[in-house]
């Protein structure tokens, strides 16, 4: 494998995301082990200033085009595929985030190369890359052999720390011109902000998170009661948002918020990777779940195998008694 390691530099609404620095850290390790260059590919319009923070890479390939202004994968995947076809990188690391979602989904098809999905680490042995991925909502870990051809790697948040991917070094920036054969088949009209007036869950010291295990909407009241007793707020994992029991602005994890409260109570939350990425930085995590094998227990400080609602009810009572 002689091609370079590429990472896609993700930026959204004017900022380079933490996911980009995580990729730079992982990409740096892989490029050094393989003895190749690490190149960051920055696609956008008028964002060349962002290249300066990508110094962990040996070089930044910058493509500026009005059609790349919006965060859609439709055009970005075409541009990246054309560039990769010219320069033949060995690995293209793309973060698993909502902003990079469509780029990630479309790129393997455009390039006709395999994707290695849900990657949480990658190592090099004897010049061959071995990927560690997780599957089935975090219930299984698999090792995948890199093979001989190029691959796109979908990297889970948290594969490296973002700090490890920051650098003060100024990268060499190469501006690359591209031609887009066809116009965009979709266009961004506007961004819609979450409804104002609701609780900002990123600002809470105490969060009571409810998941599928809360069983029904009426049981949310129990969570609200505990949150009130502790001076916090209720948030949720995806299934609760899907049911319409809580608004999207209360969702923790992918699509939702990343939170770091002093206390996070995960009630009936299984701990799928998309949820865990949004809460694993909490100071104290207490999880209750009927499934002793739930992945949430591996990121929690204290765990209870029990019915979520019963536990929340009992805890609210115990808290109230202590508070008098």
């Amino acid at each position, binding site marked *: 494998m002689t091609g370079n390691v590429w990472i896609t530099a993700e930026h959204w609404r004017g900022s380079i995301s933490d996911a980009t620095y995580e990729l730079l850290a992982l990409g740096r390790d892989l490029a050094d082990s393989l003895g190749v260059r690490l190149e960051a590919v920055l696609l956008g319009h008028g964002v060349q200033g962002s290249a300066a923070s990508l110094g962990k890479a040996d070089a930044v390939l910058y493509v500026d085009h009005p059609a790349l202004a919006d965060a*859609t994968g*439709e055009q970005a995947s075409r541009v990246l595929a054309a560039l990769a076809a010219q320069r033949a990188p060995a690995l293209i690391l793309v973060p698993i985030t*909502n*902003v990079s*979602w*469509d780029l990630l*989904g*479309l790129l*393997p*098809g*455009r390039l006709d190369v*395999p*994707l*290695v*999905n*849900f990657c949480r680490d990658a190592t090099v042995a004897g010049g061959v890359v071995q990927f560690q*991925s*997780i*599957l*089935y909502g975090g*219930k*299984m*870990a*698999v*090792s*995948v*052999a890199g*093979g001989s051809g190029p691959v796109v790697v979908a990297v889970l948040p948290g594969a490296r720390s973002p700090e490890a991917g920051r650098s003060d070094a100024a990268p060499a920036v190469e501006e690359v011109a591209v031609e887009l054969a066809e116009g965009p*088949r*979709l266009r961004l009209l*506007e*961004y*819609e*902000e*979450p409804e104002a007036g609701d609780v900002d869950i*990123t600002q809470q010291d105490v969060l009571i998170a409810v998941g599928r295990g809360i069983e029904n909407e009426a049981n949310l009241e129990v969570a609200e009661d505990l949150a009130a007793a*502790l001076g916090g707020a209720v948030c949720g994992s995806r299934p609760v948002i*899907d*049911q319409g029991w809580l608004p999207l*602005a209360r969702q923790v994890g992918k*699509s*939702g918020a*990343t939170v770091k409260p002093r*206390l996070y109570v995960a009630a009936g939350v299984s701990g799928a990777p998309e949820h865990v990425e949004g809460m694993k930085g909490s100071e*104290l995590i207490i999880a209750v779940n009927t*499934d002793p094998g739930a992945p949430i227990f*591996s990121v*929690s*400080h*204290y*765990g*209870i*195998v*029990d019915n979520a609602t019963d536990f929340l009810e*009992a*805890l609210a009572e*115990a*808290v109230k*008694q*202590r508070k008098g």
Partner: protein
Amino acid sequence: MKILVLMKMVPDIVEELEVAADGKSLDREYLRFIVNERDDYALEQALLLKDRLQATVTVVAPEAPEIDDVLHTALAKGADRAIRVSGIAEAAGTRATAAALAATLSGLDGVLPVDLILSGCQAIDDLDGFLAPLIAEALDLPYLGLVSRISVDPGAGTAVVSKEYSGGVMGRFEIAFPAFLGVQGCEKPPRYVPVAKVRAAIAAGGVEVVAAASGTAVNPLEVTSMAKPEETGHAEMLEGSVRDVAEKVAEVLAARGLL
């Protein structure tokens, strides 16, 4: 308006998963399958559009255990046509499945062209690619994933759709037909359908079966091992009655100054 919904089955992870004797795949003996949750939302989006507009909904799914239940349920909920595609090996992976489905769809009578194709934007077993964008690319359709709202202007031949970004922010996009949308959610949960209606759909024998066309050959990824994840840490498990446990937790909270 014509809508196509692609659905697939995935292992039910509520059940305990075990590794097979080969050390690199799931033990199928006790494996149960359920419909990919996001695909259920894709179907609901299609049915909501059918409720509001004149639309026909066709559901296509590769063969898998319990898939006929899913297809009969889709018919009972209001889908017009349900097609099971046989001959796609489950072990082939998502990339090969996408290639085979794209080739099959192109060859099926009266299925393509459609205005919209909807499918779940992800699945828990998508190791070597995401099904929806791979098929979108193979069919040369514009693709937008993580969609949770769709409104259609049939006269204009366009849809305005909302895609989830982070922190509760949504992007509203205009997309021209024909288009492929990867569905993440819906304004309401998938509808309930009475068992009697499903039974009626089964009795009507409404599921068509077609053989998969051979797609472009793709090599599967080489999985060298599968295991339950090694945990970097684990919670200290508290045992006892729910009252005792709650009391212990309250103690911990008090010690940390959280009360």
